[in-house]
């Protein structure tokens, strides 16, 4: 039986009705209707579903939506300022950090969390932090370059 709750995603409160066992990923994609976050493995291996919960990274496929009530959820759709891409998003395009794009939403959210916690990561720190996010196209180099480009530019994601 579905229950009513409110999920605040990218600053906007969405009243939704969801199954109590629904994951945050299911709720955001299906009930809220924001489909930027992807379901890759559905098993917390690939990071394609990564969101921020009160600013901290979460694999949303492995988190119950009802536990996000009253908290701030940020998805890839919340990283841009309107039509203006975030510096990290621009860097992904400039450094060829995007190929098929399926891992990109989770990569961007993961890298955003990294840069907030550690604004000047080394290449090794970037590679370790992003190794919970799988990419099957790019070979990671463009992604790592993009994160490092933003880190050396001004340290804000």
């Amino acid at each position, binding site marked *: 039986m579905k*229950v009513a709750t409110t999920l605040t995603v990218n600053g906007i409160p969405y009243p939704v009705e969801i199954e*109590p066992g629904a994951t945050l990923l299911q709720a955001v994609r299906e009930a809220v209707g924001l489909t930027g976050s992807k379901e890759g493995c559905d098993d917390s291996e690939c990071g394609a579903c990564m969101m921020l919960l009160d600013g901290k*990274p979460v694999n949303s496929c492995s988190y*119950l939506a009802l*536990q996000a009530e009253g908290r701030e959820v940020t998805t890839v759709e919340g990283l841009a300022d309107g039509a203006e891409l975030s510096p990290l998003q621009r860097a992904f395009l400039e450094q060829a950090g995007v190929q098929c794009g399926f891992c990109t939403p989770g990569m961007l959210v993961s890298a955003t969390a*990294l840069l907030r*916690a550690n604004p000047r990561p080394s290449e090794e720190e970037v590679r370790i*932090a992003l*190794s919970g996010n799988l990419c099957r196209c790019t070979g990671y180099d463009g992604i790592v370059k993009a994160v490092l480009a933003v880190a050396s530019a001004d340290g804000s994601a």
Partner: protein
Amino acid sequence: MSVASFVSADSVEDALQALADGARVVAGGTDLVVGARQGKAPLPEQLVAIHRLEELRGIEETDGGLRLGALVTHEELAEHPVVRERFTALADAAAIVGSHATRAQGTLGGNLMNASPAMETGGPLLCFGASVTLRSAAGSRTVSVADLFAGPAQTTAEPGELLVDVEVPAQPAGTGSCYLRLEYRRQMEIAVVGAAAAVSLEGGKVGSAKIAITALAPTIRLVPASGQALVGSDGGGEAVEAAARAAADASEPISDVRASADYRRAMAAVIARRAIETALERARGGAA
């Protein structure tokens, strides 16, 4: 079966009442929800979420030791200056759990109560002689971490009991510790083989030594013979080899998707030796 009822507890008492009524607990969800997604076990029919309980948070220093709330995250453990300096093996372990997303959400209480034989924080806590407080609607009791694990994914806690905190006692002066694991991937990995070591040095001799093995038996376990091989020695190569061999001899590994039993047995001595060497180096005050 799907989740029929979900409540988010406002107090520990609320949570204990829900447990007494048959609910199961969820905190960070990193084991419970993943297990359900993998088809290991469906989500419980009744769930009580404890993530809002402030009284279960926090790392407190207590007379040289630590009191760790059940909701302390792996991220908090890995970053805490006192944990890193004096209970280094626990920081080592917390720092390699899952990815930064897992560490931000997954809790120490959840890691312990999930009781995986491959869990990271169990070995260090065994070496440090930690205990946990289990509370139920009927009362509260203290159980050593050594007595908490009953088998793979099994603890000695009763269904109505909630792990509320972990007490880590003060360690002898001059203690160095280390946890490390054999891994194939740097994040979202589970120990193929792991070992924890806590050793103290007194005037150049090993005063105390505790060694625990991970992913090598139905539960994380201490290996007393391994510690005994070190105590009284100067912590040199021969004693370390004997201790590492004892750790390997105490292992009863299984074959699974991550490694064969033979490979695990062969690697047990290697990983134990590295953990012991690093713990000794740290006890000597070297950079490690």
